């Protein structure tokens, strides 16, 4: 093969493009299909069961609606943080990310409160199985997102770690948080809204 030599002035090896955002997006597409599997299972049971949800295992709407409002708003809040860092405002980013973290924590607390007050458990019937698996797995993802945000806050203590030009970690936490949000909107529609209608 004809190979033309080219001089690279990178000292070590060629600068490796930072592809982590692409990696995360690819991973999240994959991850969403896991939820897809759960949703398909849920819809299968919903379509093949006469009374759905069965009597005694209905969902309640008040707490989850508040939770939904909190989670959906947090997607905007976290974006303010992203906008702040792009202007080089680390303190602004910290503020908005902290608010997002608090909103995420409130969401999880709301979910625990809901679990305690539903009056049925994981094993009650197939609807309860689906409900707890789906909301539980989503809750796990919120928890992981929360850890990512706290990780960003922890790392932002180092001077110069994040700046207007260097903020991939922040962006990734934001993308993950949006993903968690989108999954919740589908989940909320399937499990809560459709069952109330």
């Amino acid at each position, binding site marked *: *093969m*004809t190979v033309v030599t080219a001089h690279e002035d990178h000292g070590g090896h060629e600068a490796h*493009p930072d592809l982590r955002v692409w990696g995360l997006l690819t991973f999240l597409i*994959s991850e969403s*299909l*896991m939820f*897809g*599997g759960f949703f398909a299972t849920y819809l299968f049971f919903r379509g093949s069961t006469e009374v759905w949800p069965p009597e005694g295992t209905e969902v309640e709407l008040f707490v989850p609606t508040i939770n939904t409002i909190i989670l959906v708003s947090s997607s905007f809040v976290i974006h303010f943080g992203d906008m702040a860092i792009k202007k080089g405002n680390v303190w602004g980013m910290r503020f908005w990310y902290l608010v997002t973290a608090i909103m995420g924590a409130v969401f999880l607390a709301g979910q625990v409160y809901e679990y305690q007050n539903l009056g049925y458990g994981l094993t009650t019937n197939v609807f309860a199985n689906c409900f707890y698996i789906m909301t539980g797995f989503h809750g796990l993802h919120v928890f992981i997102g929360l850890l990512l945000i706290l990780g960003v806050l922890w790392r932002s203590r180092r001077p110069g770690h994040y700046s207007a030009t260097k903020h991939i970690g922040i962006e990734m936490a934001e993308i993950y948080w949006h993903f968690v949000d989108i999954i919740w909107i589908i989940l909320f529609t399937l499990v809560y809204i459709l069952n109330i209608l």
Partner: protein
Amino acid sequence: MTRVEFPPHLPPDDNESKNLVVGHTLHLPAWKWRDYFTFNVDHKVIGIQYLVTAFVFYLIGGLMAIALRTELATPDADFIDPNLYNAFMTNHGTIMIFLWIVPSAIGGFGNYLIPLMIGARDMAFPKLNAIAFWLNPPAGLLLLLSFIFGGSQSGWTAYPPLSLVTAPMAQTLWILAIVLVGTSSILGSVNFVVTILMMKVPSMKWDQLPLFCWAILATSVLALLSTPVLAAGLVLLLFDLNFGTSFFKPDAGGNVIIYQHLFWFYSHPAVYLMILPIFGIMSEVIPVHARKPIFGYKAIAYSSVAICVVGLFVWVHHMFTSGTPGWMRMFFTISTLIVAVPTGVKIFGWVATLWGGKIRFTSAMLFAVGLLSMFVMGGLSGVTMGTAPFDVHVHDTYYVVAHFHYVLFGGSVFGIYAGIYHWFPKMTGRKLNEVWGRIHFALTLVGTNLTFLPMHKLGLQGMPRRVAMYDPQFVDLNVLCTIGAFILGLSVIPFAINVIWSWSKGELAGDNPWEALSLEWTTSSPPLVENWEVLPVVNHGPYDYGHSAEVGVLET
């Protein structure tokens, strides 16, 4: 060049080491043997780690197969206990699919070759790559550990309700093992997709991308879309087994068919996960050893993508006898038959490449041609079963076993061997011995046909699969199969000797022993730690044999 001791991605601080920087680029010449046992982030080390580990699992799975065939030499259960037979059968299938073919074809060849073929120094996420590999050994250990608890007994499909009532602890370990390899597969696929899409050298046009890269790209997309669905199914099964849920318990409102959907949504594409990289290997080996440009580059590249897309819509053909409604059978029969079209495109492409070529019958080429014949056979029996009426007739008989062993053994394993003979010189700097290679090929070819050809007839006569005891009328053909299995077992010996001997003392290969044109052959054998001193510039396609006199000349 002398060996240098420092982490490859960190520039050294002392002046002495700086003298070893070549052309502004820092390189370790090669890895030492002990680097292969560490958490190494180099794609070449990880590729070989995958290949060697997978081969060890291949031997373990193969020994289980020999035990099964020994049992089946007689109609009675007189060699191993039927429960152990079930456990061996389950783990034979699981190990061969999840720990041999998939890791070696995608993880092994994919990791080793992709960066070299696209002119990159490493994969996009080297650490993630190493993590993906290191999930495999514990998965294998979990499977082997399951034998302490009786071994999972419900077959590699783990269909409930059987999987919910036999050996729950072993089944749980089985699920955890599959979730581990599934995670490995997803992480690996993320890496492949991003690497291929974003990291090829700028001078390489998309129609200069080697076909193996197209195949791995399609494979990775397929893995990304299907694996998580299996994970969802397995998580539900895990909860049914251990936490009292009843997704798959019909007496408590559950449904077993939904498991089959979730399982086959992954596990049918899994057959393409196993065969697409092999198709990629074929597309590299055949033109090099036939000294001809590949016939229909674009058709072969796009057919990989087509198989990836259509492959996602055929899973229900595994469930034709599960009470599937008529319209569904119709839809999935048609989509299944359509998959045969892009596959046929590839087969015709390879045959047309061979046509009129200056064929060198190296061991790699022998295995590639062997694969062609076997895969056509397995593919045709697949088409017969893709049609619902015939499938209903041969469902769960040895005809199915014959079919998938022709495609998975005759297809995948032959392809892996072809790839090893082809790229061994690149990986080690030495050629494999051709005489031993031919003995290996002859034994494998005879063994494969003797083992699996009679199974077609056994199936048509109605011998059920998955059972240790059978009607004595089937004994003659079963004895033939068992003899074949022993020959297949023996065939591994010349291969193993060849690899071990050639790795240390084989004929030195030089950088490009096959006079191939794809990028991996432009670097040294074995390649430097960061693959190239300076990244290559591509100015012709990977298969342009005989197009110009300059092609094949390496200038640096």
